[in-house]
């Protein structure tokens, strides 16, 4: 018996962990599922906190970084990225 990591990435509407989910990705170290780009239209959780309530453990949150001077109106990557994990016995 060993453990494998399942990873859930949630993108939230604000920097608050209880904000609504606007994007999501999954990566499955157990090999039991094969998540892929564009494989679902509905988020797995409504908010980041809802993922905590379902047993996901937060291990990384994006920092709040001020825009570079002169680039205040530029848009680029999603800003509010939260990484969660579950350790699963296989």
């Amino acid at each position: 018996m060993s453990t494998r990591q399942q990873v859930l990435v949630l993108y939230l509407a604000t920097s608050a962990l209880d904000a609504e989910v606007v994007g999501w990705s999954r990566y499955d170290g157990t090999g039991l599922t094969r998540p892929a780009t564009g494989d679902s239209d509905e988020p797995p959780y409504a908010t980041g906190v809802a993922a905590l309530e379902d047993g996901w453990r937060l291990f990384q949150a994006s920092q709040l970084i001020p825009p570079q001077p002169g680039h205040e109106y530029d848009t680029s990557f999603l800003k509010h990225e939260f990484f969660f994990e579950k350790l699963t016995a296989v």
Partner: protein
Amino acid sequence: MIAGHDRKRVEIYGCPMTTSTEPLTSVQMARFVAHGYLRMDAVVPQAMNDRAIEVLDAGIPEVPYGTPLDQAFPEGSFARELVRLPVVAGALASLVGPGPTVDHHAVHIREAENGTAQPLHGDAIIDVRPDAFDVQLMYYPHEVTADMGGTLSVPGSHLRRTNESDTGRYQNLRGQTRLTCPAGTVVLLHHGLWHGGRRNDSSVRRYMFKIRFNPTVPQVRLWDTGDLADPAVAAELRTQFPWYEHATGRLEIHNRILLWRALTGDATFDIDHWTTRVANRPAVGSDA
């Protein structure tokens, strides 16, 4: 999406390939500026769709980068017929103007039961031109059903400053479009739109023919501007998408205003004071 009542047939002169076209309206252009694409369902006649698979399987000869459109495809060829359809020619003329060049073209095939999906990406490299854009035509010769892995695209992503597949980490975004469409559908994309071919879980090969166009004229008021003052223009430009973060969604409106100013040549255009407010810097002693 273009509906029949939106179309107006005119003759465009002054370009080497004079043809009958149906230009876009201002409202449709604003929709393109907000969404980053224009979808035209079943605009290619079925007789052409019936020929398409054989033509695409045979391959369409490469053309050198930057070949003028009127020289890229021989008279009588399928590709030439496609780009000369009045609704297609009109949309292209409205977006990139007369006499565009062909950047490149490609036939994309997703094999049946093909187990991989492309990462979400923008084509080419990061491209932040504030007052010009390329257009990519995507033509689907057959019906695309949900399990065929139709192109994934993210409405309103085209003004994000990201480089190619650096967005590959994002698997799903609220409000994304997983294309299903009838045969003969054409989608015109802003070059920056995030998109990707999805996994084809069906037993049917999926075809898509893509052509990228470069403008050769300033992209200013190239469409039918008769409805420029229509309040529906601003309404289109205000569109928010479910995947936007609250704060960044406001910046998207700001940046669309700047693009609309470039496309209309109207440096005073604004929506709800977003751009005027942050540019207001009264000088000492002024009356402002």
